[in-house]
């Protein structure tokens, strides 16, 4: 059987295989229109007619059909072809040379990797998935929506008023000390503040000091302090002094 004389009856072509090849090579027939599977089937039918397998014909057919398949496959990728076809022959050659050079480099790199692998072939190391500690996750327990609503209801309520009674500071009334100091100054022209309040609690001392300031503001007495933190000396004002001496005189006269 001579492969080239194989008669074909396809949609796009009718005639011997030889002619088909010639037309394809002359680019007078577009391979994209040719049903290559039809050619294979025609060949197999012819092959089946024979008693024994014609190995030589099979080999020749395989080579030819493989070449046709490759050409057709290339034709089916228009981008690649257009890219090259648009270039003039010189540019196309340049482009092909560039691609070949690129492939040459890839092969060279592959060669280096092969040598490296041979050189590093005696390196054994532990392999396997890295069993890193899992990140600690604390999943939420299954929740009851009713419980969530309950929690929210609780939050929505006004909190009870907090009693601050235990925190209240009980200041002794300032007026108590007003009277006390007035009384003191009636009997004595001057006194020492620290000595007077020495026996009192700190809160009472504070009240007493406020009373002192109040009296000073009203001009009922005078305050002296030699230096910061020095003893506070309290005395009658000049005016009070006079009034006092008058009262004393009156009292003396009356008692006399």
């Amino acid at each position, binding site marked *: 059987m001579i492969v080239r004389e194989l008669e074909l009856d396809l949609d796009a072509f009718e005639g011997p295989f030889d002619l088909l090849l010639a037309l394809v090579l002359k680019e007078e027939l577009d391979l994209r229109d040719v049903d290559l599977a039809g050619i294979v089937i025609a060949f197999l039918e012819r092959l089946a007619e024979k008693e024994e397998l014609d190995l030589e014909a099979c080999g020749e057919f395989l080579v030819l059909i493989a070449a046709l398949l490759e050409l057709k496959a290339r034709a089916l990728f228009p981008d690649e072809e257009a890219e090259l076809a648009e270039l*003039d*022959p*010189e540019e*196309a*050659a*340049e482009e*092909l*040379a560039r*691609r*070949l*050079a*690129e*492939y*040459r*480099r*890839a*092969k*060279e*790199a*592959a*060669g*280096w*990797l*092969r040598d*490296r*692998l041979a*050189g*590093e*072939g*005696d*390196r*054994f*190391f*532990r*392999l*396997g*998935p*890295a*069993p890193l500690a899992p990140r600690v996750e604390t999943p939420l327990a299954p929740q009851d929506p009713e419980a969530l609503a309950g929690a929210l209801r609780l939050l929505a309520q006004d909190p009870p008023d907090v009693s601050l009674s235990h925190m209240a500071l009980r200041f002794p009334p300032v007026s108590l000390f007003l009277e006390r100091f007035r009384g003191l100054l009636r009997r004595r022209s001057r006194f020492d503040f620290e000595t007077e309040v020495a026996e009192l609690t700190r809160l009472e001392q504070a009240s007493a000091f406020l009373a002192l300031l109040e009296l000073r503001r009203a001009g009922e007495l005078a305050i002296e302090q030699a230096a910061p933190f020095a003893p506070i000396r309290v005395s009658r004002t000049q005016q009070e002094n006079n009034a006092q001496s008058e009262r004393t005189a009156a009292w003396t006269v009356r008692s006399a």
Partner: protein
Amino acid sequence: MDRPLRLIPADPLDQLARTLEALLVVASAPLSIEELAAAAGDDPERVEDALRLVGERFAEERSGIVLEHVAGGWAFRASREEAAACARLFERPAQRNLSQAALETLAIVAYVGPCSRPDIARIRGVAADSAVANLLERGLIAEAGRDTAAGGAIRYRTTPLFERVFGLESLSELPRLGDVGEDAAGIRDRLHAVAEKRSA
């Protein structure tokens, strides 16, 4: 004067070195300085110093275990002298029987990557599907996002395992490829000759 009396029994750096040894012997992949520092609870500079100490202890011809700087981290491996014994018991599936097609594909991914199957096919002139699948299965390459172009083909890059199998500290250790030089010029001349004949 004599050295002052040491009240602390172990040198603190030596203690850190022991911690690093423990971490490295458990690890199945190289550990970075940062990972080691975080796990040991020490600072990276001291970890580097301690690694030097570990490296002196675990060196070729001194120990069956060797410390190596590989794939951007530190790892223990068997010493080369013991490779024969290891080979009798252990297989190395990642690097066994790498075909020429697989090596070429691997080379392209290593040098050009991340790149897609079409990129590889363009350079090699044949489809790269089976070689890529093979390398993926071996764990030498891994997916690395998609092409931005339409179609968005999956792109691939080499893995730390690749660097480890080939004994590379990093990809930058790959040699620069020499110019193909005369070969390229020869190819070009032949192609020009063909082109002239065709256009004539």
